[in-house]
C-alpha cells in the first residue's frame, strides 16, 4: 500500500515537473525567429519599433494636462532603467501593468485624460520606457502582496477555456517547439513588449497579443485592462524571470 502510494506520488511529481518548463530550457520568442527577423530586431535603424520610441521621446518631454507638467519634469529618463522589467507590480494595494501606471501618472499628476489602451501614445511611452531596460533581466517583485495575483495568473494560464477548450499551458508549456499552422509554437515569454509584430504591421501590447491567442481558442478575451489580463501578465513575467528584456522586440 505504502509502496503504491509512493509510486503515485512520484508519478504526480513527475507530471508536475513536466508541466513547467525548466529554467535552463527557456527560450525567448527570438530564438524561434528566422535570421532576417532577428536582424530587424537587433538594428535600431531597421527595427520599425524605433519609430514609436522616437514618438515616445517627444511625448516624454511634452507638457500635458491641467498641471502643465511633462513626464520629464518628474522623471529623468535614465531613472526608468529597470522599471519595465519589474512590472506588473502592486502599487497602492492594486496590481497594475506598466501601461496602467503611465495612466495613473497622467490622471493623478498631470491632471490629463488617460490614454486609451493600444493608443499610439501609450504604446510609444511603453516602448520608450521598455527600451531603457533592454538587456536587463526580468525581475517582477515577489512579495506577500503580489503572491495571490501570481497564483491567480498561474491558474488562468492552466485553465482550459473557449470552444476549443484549451489552456495556455497546453501549447506553451507542453507543446512548444512543435508547429501550429506551419509556425513554431513559442514558449510565450513576454520578453519584448510592446512588440512590432509583422502580422500586425504595427506595435502592440502584450494584452493585444493575449487577445490573439484567446480568439484563436475561441474564448472571449478579457476586457482591456481587466484584472485577469494583468494577473496573467504578471504570471508570464514571473515565468520569464531572469530572461533579458528585448523591448522593443520584433516578432513575426
Amino acid at each position, binding site marked *: 500500500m505504502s509502496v503504491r502510494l509512493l509510486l503515485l506520488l512520484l508519478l504526480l511529481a513527475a507530471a508536475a515537473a513536466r508541466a513547467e518548463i525548466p529554467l535552463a530550457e527557456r527560450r525567448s520568442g527570438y530564438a524561434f525567429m528566422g535570421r532576417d527577423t532577428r536582424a530587424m530586431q537587433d*538594428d*535600431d*535603424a*531597421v527595427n*520599425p519599433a*524605433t*519609430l514609436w520610441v522616437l*514618438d515616445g521621446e517627444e511625448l516624454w518631454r511634452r507638457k500635458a494636462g491641467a498641471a502643465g507638467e511633462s513626464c520629464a519634469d518628474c522623471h529623468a529618463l535614465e531613472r526608468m532603467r529597470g522599471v519595465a522589467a519589474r512590472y506588473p507590480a502592486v502599487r497602492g494595494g492594486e496590481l497594475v501593468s506598466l501601461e496602467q501606471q503611465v495612466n495613473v501618472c497622467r490622471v493623478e499628476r498631470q491632471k490629463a485624460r488617460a490614454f486609451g489602451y493600444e493608443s499610439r501614445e501609450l504604446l510609444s511611452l511603453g516602448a520608450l520606457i521598455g527600451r531603457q531596460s533592454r538587456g536587463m533581466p526580468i525581475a517582477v517583485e515577489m512579495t506577500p502582496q503580489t503572491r495571490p495575483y501570481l497564483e491567480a495568473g498561474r491558474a488562468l494560464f492552466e485553465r482550459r477555456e473557449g470552444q476549443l477548450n484549451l489552456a495556455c499551458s497546453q501549447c506553451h508549456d507542453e507543446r512548444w517547439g512543435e508547429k501550429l499552422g506551419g509556425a513554431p509554437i513559442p514558449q510565450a515569454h513576454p520578453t519584448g513588449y510592446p512588440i512590432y509584430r*509583422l502580422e500586425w*504591421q504595427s506595435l502592440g501590447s502584450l494584452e493585444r497579443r493575449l487577445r490573439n491567442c484567446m480568439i484563436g481558442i475561441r474564448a472571449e478575451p478579457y476586457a482591456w485592462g481587466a484584472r485577469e489580463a494583468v494577473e496573467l501578465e504578471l504570471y508570464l513575467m514571473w515565468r520569464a524571470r531572469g530572461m533579458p528584456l528585448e523591448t522593443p522586440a520584433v516578432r513575426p
Partner: protein
Amino acid sequence: MARAIVQVPAQAKRGEIIEIKTLIGHTMETGFRHNDRGELIPRDIIRLFVCTYNGVEVFRAELHPAVSANPLLIFPTVATESGTLEFRWTGDNGFSAVRSAKVEVS
C-alpha cells in the same frame, strides 16, 4: 511630420560601396480593405521614393499597395565625393517627407 530614420555611414573611402538604410512611418493603406461598416477604406500609400547624392539621383523606387506598412528600403551606392544625400518620399493625399544625411569621402 512623418517619422523617418535614415542611416548612412558618416565616412567612406572614395569608390567604396556604402549601404544606406531608410525607414519611414506610414500605414500604407492598400485601398482594398473594408471598415466595420463595409465601406472601402481609401487608398493611402507612399508612391515614390527618390534618393539624390549631391543633386544626382542614385536610387528610385515606386511603391505599390502590396508594400508593407512602415516601408524599409536598403540599397547600396558608390561613395564618389563628400556631400549630402537627400531622401524624398511622396504619396497619396499630398504626403511628402524629406530627410538628408552627410557623408565624408576621403
